[in-house]
């Protein structure tokens, strides 16, 4: 009995000791960060990725640093932002790490001084557009895709690029009446961001808006809702759906098909930063470094089923595999940059929304 305990104790000690060795390529004083993080004993993460999906990362991180408990809470991206600013303003401290798909809101928080400056030793391994002011990092590489119902769409109908999508819903407006879905850009920040990007890359976006109107498209705030409704056949086609979620469901769901648009595929990158008021800044650093490390990225590209942003990892879902499939010029990542907060300006956003609504309404009335 006591011998067994000793073994366990030794094993625990061993793993702690192992964790405290500095990973290759990291600065020598990283050992101090690890020691301080162990003293903090936990890291509080607010994330828009649901707990279930993040579980493999949490488990693996805890295996790597057994002394650090991960307190992970998932909220939708707007709630995440709301809670963070309210908590920050109340001075009680908020999350140690913020991790969200609402790239624009994350950049806004960084711009407003809510992030801790921390240059991750892994930063050099990321594409330059994914590192923002040495404070925030793009961590994933998630494509925006089309989805369709496999049982109810014929093979020749499946749109392979944006022009084909627009043409399909314009020419077969009767079959697709009330059967096309996309994000409600008034409710979903991610959906809004995608459409703004579309205006950059898709010259015929007017056709698309017209088609949405002509087919009386249905809009939702959440990805899961659209996946469910396309899978069940209530809707037939989905536009600009977050691909990481769609592909996971398509794997298990015989009714759901996914298309990566051939002309260009938008890519979203979940942005992560450490809170300025973080109570456990060192543990937070370890988490950020872990997520950006090869080990973390490999999990993101496999068990977590998002897409790894690093090109030097070998997994099912990676930026590299996506680029290879689509060709390097057809993948259009949304950069983590100051530019993406443009439409957080109230006036600009409302103008954009109104223009969009007007274009769709014009399509609906057949003009």
């Amino acid at each position, binding site marked *: 009995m006591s011998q067994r305990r000793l073994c366990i104790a030794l094993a625990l000690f061993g793993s702690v000791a192992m964790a405290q060795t500095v990973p290759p390529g990291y600065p020598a004083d990283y050992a101090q960060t690890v020691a301080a993080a162990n003293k903090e004993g936990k890291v509080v993460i607010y994330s828009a990725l649901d707990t*279930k999906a993040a579980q493999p990362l949490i488990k693996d991180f805890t295996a790597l640093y057994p002394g650090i408990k991960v307190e992970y*809470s998932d909220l939708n991206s707007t709630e995440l932002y709301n809670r963070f600013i309210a908590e920050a303003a109340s001075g009680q401290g908020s999350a140690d790490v913020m991790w969200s798909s609402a790239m624009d809101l994350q950049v806004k928080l960084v711009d407003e001084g809510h992030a801790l400056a921390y240059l991750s030793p892994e930063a050099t391994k990321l594409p330059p557009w994914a590192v923002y002011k040495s404070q925030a990092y793009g961590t994933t590489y998630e494509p925006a895709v089309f989805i369709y119902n496999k049982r109810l769409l014929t093979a020749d109908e499946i749109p392979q690029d944006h022009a084909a999508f627009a043409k399909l819903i314009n020419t077969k407006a009767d079959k697709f009446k009330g059967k096309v879905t996309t994000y409600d850009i*008034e409710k979903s920040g991610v959906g809004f961001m995608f459409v703004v990007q579309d205006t950059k890359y898709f010259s015929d976006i007017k056709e698309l808006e017209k088609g949405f109107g002509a087919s009386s498209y249905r809009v939702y705030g959440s990805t899961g809702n659209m996946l469910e409704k396309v899978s069940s056949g209530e809707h037939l086609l989905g536009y600009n759906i977050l691909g990481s979620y769609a592909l996971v469901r398509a794997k298990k*769901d015989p009714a759901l098909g996914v298309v990566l648009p051939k002309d260009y595929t938008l890519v979203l990158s979940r942005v992560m930063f450490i809170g300025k008021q973080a109570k456990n800044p060192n543990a937070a650093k370890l988490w950020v470094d872990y997520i950006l490390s090869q080990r973390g990225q490999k999990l993101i590209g496999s068990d977590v089923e998002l897409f790894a942003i690093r090109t030097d990892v070998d997994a099912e879902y990676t930026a590299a595999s996506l680029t290879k499939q689509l060709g390097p010029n057809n993948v259009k990542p949304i950069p983590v940059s100051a530019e993406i907060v443009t439409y957080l300006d109230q006036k600009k956003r409302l103008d954009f929304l109104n223009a969009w609504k007007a274009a769709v309404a014009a399509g609906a009335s057949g003009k």
Partner: protein
Amino acid sequence: MRAATLSAVPRGLTILLTAAAVLAPLLLILYQSLLTAPFFDARKTVGFGAYEFIFADPDFWHASLNSVVIATAMVIIAVPLGGILAFVMERTDLPGKRWIEPLILVPSFVSPMVLAFGFVVAAGPVGFYTVWATEWLGGAPWGIYSLTAIGIIAGLLHVPNVYVYASAALKSLGSDVEEAARVAGASPFRVATTVSLPLIMPAMLFAAVLVFFLGFELFGLPLVLGDPEGHLVLSTYLYKLTNKLGTPSYHLMAAVAICIVAVTFPLVLLQRYLLQNARKYATIKGKAGRMRELPLGKWKWVAAGLIGLWLFVGVIVPLSGIALRAFVTNWGYGAKLAEVLTLEHFQSVLDEPILVRAIWNTILIGTVGGAIAVACYTAIGFATHRRTDGWSRFVDYLVLVPRAIPGLLAGLAFLWVFLFFPPLQPLRTTLFSMWLAYTVVWLAYGMRLISSSLMQVSTELEEAARTVGASRGQISRQITLPLIRPGLMASWLLVFMIFEREYSTGVYLLAPGTEVIGAQLVSLWQGGAIDVVAALSLVNVVLVGVGLALALRFGVKLRD
């Protein structure tokens, strides 16, 4: 003298705490509505910008109109049906009444979120029933996403709210007048419409105001059913504002909330006025003698059939939809039931510590939280019991205030209170924050339960105690409290069910440690984890079911 001063301390404290808990969130919302940014933002300025914005937004007017339309539809549907249902249940020889009675109340105890979701998977464009109807009949002649459909569904689901008031009024009314009409040859339907229902008009009027008011507050149903065609009502418009500008627009949300309160608070006051009037009426009605059941004759099966149809549409369709969806991997056209059956979703719920905690928390907030809430309501009840001073009247109105605030916003206001009121800060991420919000939001309901128990205690007993020199406190503890114990137990059970059902209040209070099923459902629905939503909904229905079964077992009257 000294004893009197001492006994005033707990009363004063009770009133003070109640006032703080009720008014702090309301004032915070009012203040927020007059700012241009979140109240904790340094860049805020005072002004009417928020109101100008929403009044200039066409969506606001659409939503308002929709709210009025839906609320009106609910009144038109629920009031006559609820009245006739009460008449049939109270007055006639309908077969199987004992079984029907608890079923009638089911829609008012199941979360509207769950019911709405049930309607989507059962009767939506590719719901289970729709697919079956298409396979067998070649088409399904219904749709559930239109404004009309939402109004009808909401109307059907609020029949119980009318039923409880109508049947309570009928109970207190002698049946001799009805028998006279029957003898004179009137059909049962004629008796109902020309004799019984006109006699209980005050109660019906009260119920109509109540239903209209509930229609204004409707959230879960339009959130789920109004989504596909984009029908907004005021509460979902408010929810949508969370994101419309990209960043939180608390000032706009608060302004909408104030607009809602501006409609609902007068309605609450009107209700109160009508209730008092109804009580006055009660005494001049016929003698409450022995009730004789009117024979329905050939109408018996028509009535039973109609009630059966209503129960089928309002209870069986959505709940069976939820139950089925919880056990299948995917659904819709082309999905074979036998191939898609699974227990995986429940496994996912159990695998996720947050959801397991949500289930425990929900049980905890219903049982322990419910008990403490009842204790609080009782304390407030005693603070006003048999007193007619200004403070009592103040409390009377005070407890009505939270009723007028939509749960969604009340929850947000409580989040602010817990964030920015230092003594409460450490409690924010505990279940206490959720409990306090629930207790305050349901204050009016709870107080009605308690005061109806208190009213049953006759004054003689208390007066007897007073003559032998007992203080107010002693009377309360030793006479009144033991006497209302059965009533308190019943209240506890009802509060348990209400707390299990609640969903909108918790939406903004959701944090690690405060997870409850109701709010988690809204969040998961938004996130789109539909499998988990179905499984968790079923767990929620089972919890409510347990409460309902216990209530029936112990003979609790399911209405106040």
